[in-house]
């Protein structure tokens, strides 16, 4: 077993009401400006006990859960990760001088979550993500990556995820046409973002642009749509490892080469291999989203991510290894469970450890249980652990 990595619990009961109940229609991700080392879960302000993700009250003392609110950016202590020193108002350690890392922004809604971070090279986070639930309570993941060679890419990405999730949130999900409608809404929203006012961009006549990946998980299928190179994968537990399978199709120079028989690793090294051939925005080519469906069952996870993650795990095998290494699936040997939010955060941390050359966004959702006449709380995933138990980050 891996002593340093905890298994991932696939779901926390029927997500239908629970998720649908407290998920706003759409909430674009923002890179929070302050606290580092965010605890994805939080502790009770009254008794210090760890809080269950999404809980309104502390299970130990009953006090209202005033800690990091479920579904919001999380707070954290201001101490230096390197030496334990105090962090000053400028974000530096008062002892060793290290800059406190920008916090990973985590949105934790139990059976669906995302984490996003600016990475280690870019001065700002131009990715965005949103979580939602359909009328059936099925999880919706939306991830967008602003094109850094365009003005206001962060605003385009935020507008795109907000529009796409709003299109799907709270409505009955009828399949691929709904996904295409979400992509079209995102395209319209991104196209409406002005090019002016970007402090990091001198006006050159180009328009804000972004990629998009949208996924909806029903109890039996994953539906995915994408434009550009944001990806959707399924993660299927296989013993103590995850098996990853890409559902989306990249609009990229490399993907075209792969389609013609070039190996993935070779294709990504091609000149301009990372260049995208499709995007959203006012100067985008004719909108032609890839739409795909895969059969799944409860226990499977759906992952949506920006290339800040998959650049370091470009193949299904590499991605499966990365997820297994950071958050293995629940199994017979697993004693503690890991929430999806913690798994997302760990993958962001992992991508930063690989170099963090781009903004990183990772979203995860559990394939929901088929709707039961009376939804019951309780573990939906195999394994001995209480799936709602959360561990320290």
């Amino acid at each position, binding site marked *: 077993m891996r002593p340093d990595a905890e298994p991932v619990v696939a779901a926390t009961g029927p997500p239908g009401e629970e998720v649908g109940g407290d998920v706003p229609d759409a909430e*674009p*991700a*923002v*890179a*929070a*400006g302050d606290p580092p080392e965010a605890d994805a879960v939080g502790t009770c302000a009254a008794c210090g006990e760890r809080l269950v993700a999404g809980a309104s009250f502390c299970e130990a003392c009953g006090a209202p859960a005033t800690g990091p609110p479920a579904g919001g950016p999380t707070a954290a202590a201001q101490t230096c990760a390197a*030496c334990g020193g*105090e962090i*000053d*108002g*400028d974000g*530096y*350690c*008062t*002892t*060793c*001088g*290290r*800059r406190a890392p*920008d916090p990973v*922004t985590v949105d934790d809604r139990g059976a669906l979550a995302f984490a*996003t971070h*600016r990475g*280690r*090279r870019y*001065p*700002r*986070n*131009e*990715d*965005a993500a949103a979580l939602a639930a359909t009328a059936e309570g099925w999880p919706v993941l939306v991830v967008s990556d602003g094109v850094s060679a365009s003005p206001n890419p*962060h*605003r385009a*990405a*935020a507008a795109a995820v907000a529009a796409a999730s709003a299109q799907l949130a709270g409505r009955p999900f009828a399949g691929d046409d709904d996904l295409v409608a979400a992509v079209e809404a995102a395209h319209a929203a991104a196209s409406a973002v002005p090019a002016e006012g970007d*402090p*990091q961009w001198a006006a050159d006549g180009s328009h804000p642009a972004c990629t998009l990946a949208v996924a909806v998980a029903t109890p039996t299928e994953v539906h995915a749509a994408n434009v550009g190179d944001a990806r959707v994968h399924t993660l299927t537990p296989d013993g103590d490892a995850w098996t990853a399978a890409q559902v989306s199709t990249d609009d990229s120079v490399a993907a075209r080469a792969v389609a013609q028989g070039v190996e993935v690793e070779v294709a990504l090294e091609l000149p301009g291999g990372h260049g995208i051939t499709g995007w959203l925005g006012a100067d985008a080519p004719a909108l032609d989203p890839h739409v795909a469906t895969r059969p799944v069952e409860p226990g499977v996870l759906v992952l949506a991510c920006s290339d800040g993650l998959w650049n370091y795990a470009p193949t299904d095998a590499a991605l499966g290894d990365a997820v297994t290494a950071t958050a293995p699936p629940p199994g017979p040997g697993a004693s503690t469970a890991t929430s999806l939010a913690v798994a997302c955060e760990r993958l962001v941390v992992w991508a930063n450890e690989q*170099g*963090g050359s781009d903004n990183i966004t990772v979203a995860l959702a559990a394939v929901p249980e088929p709707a039961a006449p009376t939804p019951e709380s309780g573990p939906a995933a195999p394994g001995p652990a209480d799936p709602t138990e959360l561990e320290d980050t």
Partner: protein
Amino acid sequence: MTATGPQSAAFTAETFQNEYLAAGVDTVDAVVTVSAAGHPEEAGSALTAATDRAEVIIVDVSGSMGAGRKMAAAREAASAAVDSLDDGVSFAVVAGDHEAKLIWPRDGRSFAIADDDDRAAAKAAIGATEPAGGTAIGTWLDLARQLFAATAAPARHAILLTDGRNEHQQPYELAAAVAACRGLFQCDCRGVGVDWEVDELRGIATALLGTVDIVADPGDLAADFRAMISSSQSRALPDVKLRLWTPQGAVIESLRQVAPELLDVTGTATESGPLARDFLLGGWAPGESRDYHLRIKVNPGGVGDEMLAGRVSLVLADGTVATQALVRAVWTDDTAKSTRMDRHVAHYTGQAELADAIHEGLEAAKAGDERTATVKLGRAVQLAAASGHGDTMRLLAEVVDVDDAERGTVRLRRGTDKAAEMTLDTRSTRTVRLGKGASGDAGTDAPASEQAAPPAGGA
């Protein structure tokens, strides 16, 4: 150290650096420009009144002063200084030879208070001095120190005039006297004639946060003394300190004032916290601006890491932190970023080399090593020309014949005037600033501001 305290607009500080370092590089260079507000009273900072100021005028009355018209000029200059004092300023006049004598006031007080009567009486006492005896500058400073110890005036300044070496005292005695005065008062030093020692007087002025200059022509003394008093009285902000925080394990390799003149203050720090050092800067005049070159050695981080290598704070006499500037280090594998040199750092590195070249060239010439002297002074000409340092260029041209300034080709002059050499030596530490519009890699500053901006949100 985290709290910056109430911020006063009396000072501003700005950092110029290339914070990008290649992997493994541990040395961080930065130039910090500190400027006092033009009207600090408007910024709410207290100004010193005349009654808050104390002046001691120290005049050499040793036997050598009797040569030529040095003594007459010195009396004239000291009288001009007395005349320049504002009403209400505490002042004393010290006559120095192999010992120090308080010639005004003579009623047992340490200081007279300037008014018309006292000024007239002091000038009469100055007029009565006669040259005799030796030179023991340490004793003059000892007396000044005792006088200043008796006043509560926060702004304390002395003028020291000599024409000779500290001949009647051991070097260690002078060093001890200077050390005892440090932080108690500021002292501007002047050498008249050509028989004094540039290094000796510069040592005193540097330690006591003052200026040093040669007044080769005694006739110019009075105007110079008036200017010193006027400049001293304009220093409305007394006892400013530069506080430098560095991270644990870091070493302050050097901290030098680089403008308006070179002043190495590295070794003068006192500890003000576990990781903080205080450097005395003396008094500041409204609108005054000085540049400091810091070199800090840190434990290097990994590629992508960012570290605060230094935090520069200006601390006023009452302990208020007036302003702060950050010196950062960011390790990168992008050589396009890490190989650039900030133009301010480059400029002042050149100015320091210019001062060194002049000093070494003159030393070599004195020792008869013409080859070294020619090379060093040639290099000085080259650096002065490249940085547009017109004043130093003119002084160099008094000492060498310049064939090609750009290449640094010079010939030593035969029978050079000693006053010209001493003037060049004394003023070699004066620097020119980099003009705002000067050519160079202006883009170097851009990443600094980019890095300073907080990471923008995704929305």
